[in-house]
């Protein structure tokens, strides 16, 4: 195994890879030698694809509304036309609408299921048969959420879609393991994603306000600082590459220990925790994904 280029010459598809977490994954994969196809609605998609092409020349962006089944279908066809087959599929998209279950608008619910769950199933249906036909020992990485395991109030539609994604991933592992195809789920805790980046960007000239914004989330996980998009990307790289060639059907948490707490317990912090937290916040705020 070449640890310098873990995805050398692999064809990778990352949904919603134009910005935020998806882009961080796409970029790391490209740096490891992959040809990357990204899709999404973002206007920044072509710009992201240009940046990716500087690293991996055959990468491309396809504008696609993942809530529309025909557009997802078109995206799948386009990928197979350009890439012949897919080695790695990362279902990275996630939209959320905060509504109490008793007040869920069923249109919102359907849109969330379409984007978070149905699009993933549709793309799996598009790419996995080709993997089997061409004897590709591919990997599918489903980016899920802590809400699928340990939900919070008013996230019913989102938690249902991500819980569904976890289950689909395990069933798929049973169905395609015999062909050497692996499928795993990565559940993110609170991470600095596109939405958070936009909030931080809006107050980019005031570092104190940015600190205060991040401090709001202090205590949601035992670790001092939230994960960065780059950290999740490293985890996705591990699951996509041969480093995890004997791992399938796993639901792995990347949440800074948030789900291992039995109950709230305020354990003493080290004396310099404040400084350590600031160091981590600065690293996060100076990330290119925030700017």
């Amino acid at each position, binding site marked *: 195994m070449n640890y310098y280029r873990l995805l050398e010459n692999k064809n990778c598809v990352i949904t919603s890879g134009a910005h935020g977490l998806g882009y961080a994954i796409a970029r790391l994969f490209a740096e490891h030698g992959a040809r990357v196809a990204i899709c999404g609605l973002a206007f920044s998609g072509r710009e992201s694809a240009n940046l990716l092409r500087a690293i991996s020349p055959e990468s491309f962006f396809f504008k696609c509304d993942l809530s529309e089944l025909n557009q997802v279908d078109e995206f799948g066809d386009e990928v197979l036309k350009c890439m012949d087959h897919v080695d790695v599929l990362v279902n990275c998209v996630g939209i959320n609408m905060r509504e109490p279950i008793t007040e869920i608008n069923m249109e919102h619910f359907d849109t969330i299921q379409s984007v978070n769950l149905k699009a993933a199933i549709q793309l799996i249906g598009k790419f996995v048969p080709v993997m089997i036909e061409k004897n590709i020992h591919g990997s599918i990485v489903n980016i899920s959420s802590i809400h699928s395991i340990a939900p919070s109030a008013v996230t019913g539609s989102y938690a249902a879609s991500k819980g569904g994604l976890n289950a689909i991933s395990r069933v798929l592992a049973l169905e395609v393991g015999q062909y050497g195809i692996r499928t795993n789920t990565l559940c993110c805790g609170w991470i600095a994603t596109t939405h958070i980046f936009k909030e931080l960007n809006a107050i980019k000239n005031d570092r104190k306000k940015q600190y205060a914004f991040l401090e709001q989330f202090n205590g949601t996980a035992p670790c001092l600082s939230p994960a960065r998009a780059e950290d999740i990307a490293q985890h996705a790289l591990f699951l996509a590459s041969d480093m995890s060639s004997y791992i399938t059907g796993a639901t792995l948490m990347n949440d800074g220990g948030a789900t291992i707490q039995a109950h709230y317990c305020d354990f003493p912090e080290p004396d310099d925790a404040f400084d*350590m937290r600031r160091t981590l916040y600065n690293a996060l705020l100076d990330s290119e994904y925030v700017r």
Partner: protein
Amino acid sequence: MIQCYNPIDHIAIMKDRVVLLAGYDGTIAGSIRTLFKRHGATIIDVFNEKNLSLEMLKNNEKIDSLVFISHPNVITSIEKIDSLAANSIFQSGCLFLHSIVKQVLPIMKRQREGNIVSIVPDYAVAAVPGVSICAANAAASVSYLRAVAIECCKFGIRANSVLTGFSIAENGDAQIHQLGKEAAEDAFVRYQPLGRRGSCEDVANAALFCASSMSNSITGESIPVNGGVLIVGHSQVWQPKDKSVFSLTLKEQRK
């Protein structure tokens, strides 16, 4: 100095890292040693409690990672395990892990960085007949590391477990010895979705992931390296011979 979020150098992911390798010195330990050295780590072997002295640790100004490997199975029924044998399993397992963790934690806390990886069989989280005390010991190690993760995460210390499948290394050899080569290989294929025997290198790669900055924001987690055996439910054990037994359409079911 805390080291988080630095760009990861995949050329030598463990460069200048000091790794304490402890527990059972079998084929998994061999693979981990080879892989970590290839990635630039300095390895200190502690395979016997007699090797472990505070003096030895004091001489090392830093310890970046501790990788602890659990002993292989002792397959026997519950009635046949006497308390002496049970005690010995815990002594060489969870209690040995605790004695090492207790000594490396002050060093890691001082560094404000470090990670601990425990390699245990996956029957720590799912029942298997014949390994009762070994399973209890493995489960204790996993729970123990979760407590370490919670207690020490604010010092920049992470703790994770790697759960190994029944076909890997000495445990897989024991299956072959017990069932015969053909029957054991049949079991490896039938009960693991990936349909093959796992290797020590598979475990070493997961240990490398846990011990390196690739897993920066993961703590208290258990990573199953077992070909998906834990997700196999009743479906793999019970398969209808006649697939047409389920023939009702959606419309018919809704009547």
